[in-house]
């Protein structure tokens, strides 16, 4: 059975001034497959995400999400289509409670942005939905605590919960385990695997930590100096000579 | 033609005075991150204290040199005792704190020197006039036109080539890094605030022979120097220069063409610049 491609990137270019960051990247992400994008520092992974999620307008190429051309679309229009992302640096609503952090995208999703005289407390269905998501990521018991009080690992989970709240078709995870200790990393890997299997959402992550990538991803793209160096199943990538060279041999053995 | 040249000089001389005030404001903002509402009051204090010295010594030049230095000392005291606790606060708290300082300074001046107006004379050498077309133009205004670039150039040299200047620029760019390479940042901040204050006070001392000295002096320049700093780009040195000259010209030529909206000209300029260039003319992204 041929699965549908949820994301198609065609010949994507991006440059800052004269500095080329992405030069001609084409790739496809099939629905339901846990895909990863790896590459050494400065390969252009975050820029790639920023272009797709609408932070930058690409200087060339096309991004097609779920059959819709989203090239150059602003971020706030892309998210409602079902494409969400998380950030490498924890990027949540610190002074709001954990629950409220999730309620923000939920309220947006259900068109409540400008309803300004109804009480949020009375929106029971929103709160229930939020609790389900918090349960999924394991934060249910901390729902009423202000987000800034949480330990680092939990903040990263809030980040994921926000991305999941709108029940997106595709989630871009930008280094979800960055800065985590081994225990937290372990928990995150488990979470991503489960979510990918159960939630019906496609995950596309970048990762620095090779261990994470190879234990999670079903398919891997390798980005090097703004170009796609290789792609394939984890086992194929592991054996790829060019990839090994790009990483100077070191990281892949880890 | 004649009116054009005269207005050009009018705009330039007022612009240079604005530049001196604004460059202090922008330097303080660039390094300390504080937008100082009391800057206008320090300008006023500069005028009063140099007047005081001028009467004491009595020499215009002594006042011009010593007055601003005295104010700079006061500025450093303010920095140490009042500004230090609020560096990591929101801009609005800093604005309010400096506003409170403004209230104290303005009223203190009124208590000491009374609410009336005072007048200071330009020294003999600058007091005359020179012929311009068939009118006479005061030498002192020309002096103002010249002193602006001199002080601006001096500052530029200071920031570009001296050790202290380089240190200040380093601290402005990255406070933590500056601390990392062993700069005593608190001391540096005090010095920078002193420098900013000195510039404002120097502006006041230079303005003294040109306008009446009164408790309202500061209030009149503070919003204008805010506008200069913002349209030039916060923390930008050339920005303050260009901004001040543009505003000076706008106000000088505005009397000819603007009519009823003349009062709004600085604000229209401010809005237009911010809408087209959000960070000001020389602001960094």
């Amino acid at each position: 059975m041929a699965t549908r491609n949820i994301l198609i990137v065609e010949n994507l270019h991006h440059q800052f001034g004269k500095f080329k960051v992405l030069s001609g990247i084409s790739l496809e992400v099939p629905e339901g497959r846990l895909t990863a994008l790896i590459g050494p520092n400065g390969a252009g992974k975050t820029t790639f995400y920023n272009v797709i999620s609408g932070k930058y307008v690409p200087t060339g190429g096309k991004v097609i999400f779920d059959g819709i051309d989203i090239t150059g679309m602003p971020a706030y229009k892309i998210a409602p289509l079902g494409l969400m992302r998380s950030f490498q640096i924890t990027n949540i609503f610190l002074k709001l409670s954990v629950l409220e952090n999730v309620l923000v995208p939920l309220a947006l999703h259900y068109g409540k942005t400008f309803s300004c005289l109804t009480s949020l407390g009375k929106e029971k269905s929103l709160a229930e939905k939020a609790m389900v998501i918090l349960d999924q990521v394991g934060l249910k018991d901390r729902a009423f605590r202000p987000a800034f009080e949480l330990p680092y690992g939990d903040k990263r989970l809030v980040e994921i919960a926000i991305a999941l709240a709108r029940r997106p078709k595709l989630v871009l995870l930008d280094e979800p385990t960055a800065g985590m200790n081994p225990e937290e990393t372990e928990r995150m890997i488990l979470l991503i695997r489960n979510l990918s299997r159960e939630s019906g959402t496609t995950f596309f992550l970048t990762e620095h930590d090779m261990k994470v990538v190879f234990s999670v991803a079903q398919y891997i793209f390798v980005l090097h100096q703004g170009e796609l160096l290789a792609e394939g199943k984890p086992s194929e990538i592991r054996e790829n000579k060019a990839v090994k060279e790009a990483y100077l041999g070191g990281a892949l053995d880890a | 033609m004649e009116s054009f040249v005269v207005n050009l000089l009018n705009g330039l001389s007022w612009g240079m005075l604005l530049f001196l005030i604004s460059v202090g404001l922008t330097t303080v903002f660039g390094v300390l991150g504080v937008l100082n509402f009391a800057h206008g009051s320090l300008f006023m204090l500069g005028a009063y204290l140099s007047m005081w010295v001028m009467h004491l010594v009595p020499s215009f030049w002594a006042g011009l040199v010593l007055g601003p230095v005295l104010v700079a000392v006061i500025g450093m005291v303010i920095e140490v005792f009042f500004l230090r606790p609020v560096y990591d606060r929101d801009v609005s708290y800093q604005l309010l704190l400096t506003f409170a300082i403004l209230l104290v300074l303005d009223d203190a001046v009124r208590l000491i020197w009374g609410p009336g107006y005072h007048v200071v004379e330009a020294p003999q050498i600058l007091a005359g006039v020179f012929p311009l077309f068939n009118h006479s133009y005061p030498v002192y205004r020309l002096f103002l036109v010249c002193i602006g670039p001199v002080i601006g150039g001096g500052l530029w040299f200071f920031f570009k080539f001296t050790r202290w200047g380089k240190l200040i620029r380093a601290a402005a760019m990255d406070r933590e890094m500056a601390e990392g390479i062993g700069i005593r940042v608190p001391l540096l901040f005090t010095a920078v605030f002193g420098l900013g204050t000195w510039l404002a006070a120097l502006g006041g001392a230079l303005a003294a022979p040109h306008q009446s000295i009164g408790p309202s002096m500061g209030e009149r320049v503070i919003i204008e120097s805010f506008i200069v700093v913002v349209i030039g780009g916060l923390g930008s040195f050339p920005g303050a220069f260009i901004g001040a000259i543009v505003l000076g010209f706008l106000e000088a030529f505005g009397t000819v063409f603007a009519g009823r909206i003349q009062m709004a000209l600085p604000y229209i300029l401010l809005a237009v610049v911010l809408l087209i260039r959000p960070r000001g003319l020389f602001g960094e992204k």
Partner: protein
Amino acid sequence: MGRNTSVKSQFISGVSIFGILALCPIFFPIYWTMILTEILIMGLFAMSFNLLFGYSGLLSFGQAGFFGLGAYATTISILHGVKSIWLAMLIGMAASAIGATLIGFLCVRRDEIFFAMLTLGFGMMIYTVAHNWRELTGGSDGLSLFMVPPIHFFGLEVSLEPPRAMYYFSLIIVAAAVYILWRVIRSPFGLMLMASRENKDRLYFVGANVKNIRLFAFVIAGVMAGLSGALFSLFNHMAAPSFVHWSFSARPVLMTILGGSEIFFGPACGAAIFFVLEQLVTSITENWMIVLGAILIPVVIFTPKGILGTVVSWFTDNKA
């Protein structure tokens, strides 16, 4: 600290404050009733400002522009023959709404000090219009209302000329407006505002058009400022250019930071503190500026949450 309990306590404190305020004129001399009226009006003004400042993270330095639009439009419509106070106040609010929409559209794209300076600039443009359009606004002299028309309800005619009548009129209007603000803050939209204050970029990436959210808040704040301006013009029988000047915009900033921007009633409390302080200081000395400054400096340095905010956090900290 659970948000729900704080919501409940806020509501209860709101209702009890209203009750106490309703009783005040019975015990207060007439002058203090007038001061209290002013506190109510300025309190609403400060709270409108805080919808932007405290809840949306936008420091507006031109809020007096909308206050003034409300005051002028109300005064002008009464002077041009509008007999109903309600209609006149509605016209005032409409004028502020239009002004806030136009100006907000341009301002909400900017942040922090740039937002503050833009609002300052546009506020001062409104000031220039008020100051120079002599035919309509009376120019620098402003406009004076010789008589405020009486209000009618249920066939009853009530004159607003007696200070106590004006007080109750203001109290009811301000209470209604504050209730609306309270609803707004607790609504999903209120959550959006706080989210935009906390992390504008993130909100953008979960699919919110931050500009529109801010614009909507700007308009609500503008209308509320306009309403307080309309009340102020009725209370003082006048509209004057000084209502629109930037130094008038500084008042809600001062009051909000004095009272505390993170507490719903903080700005109103700040207004009360400000007025009482002003009354005390000016009755002692003409040099009230130096005294006010000397009081403000330690307040800003030592109570970063404002006076009410600090008091509230004492209590909540003790509980925890």
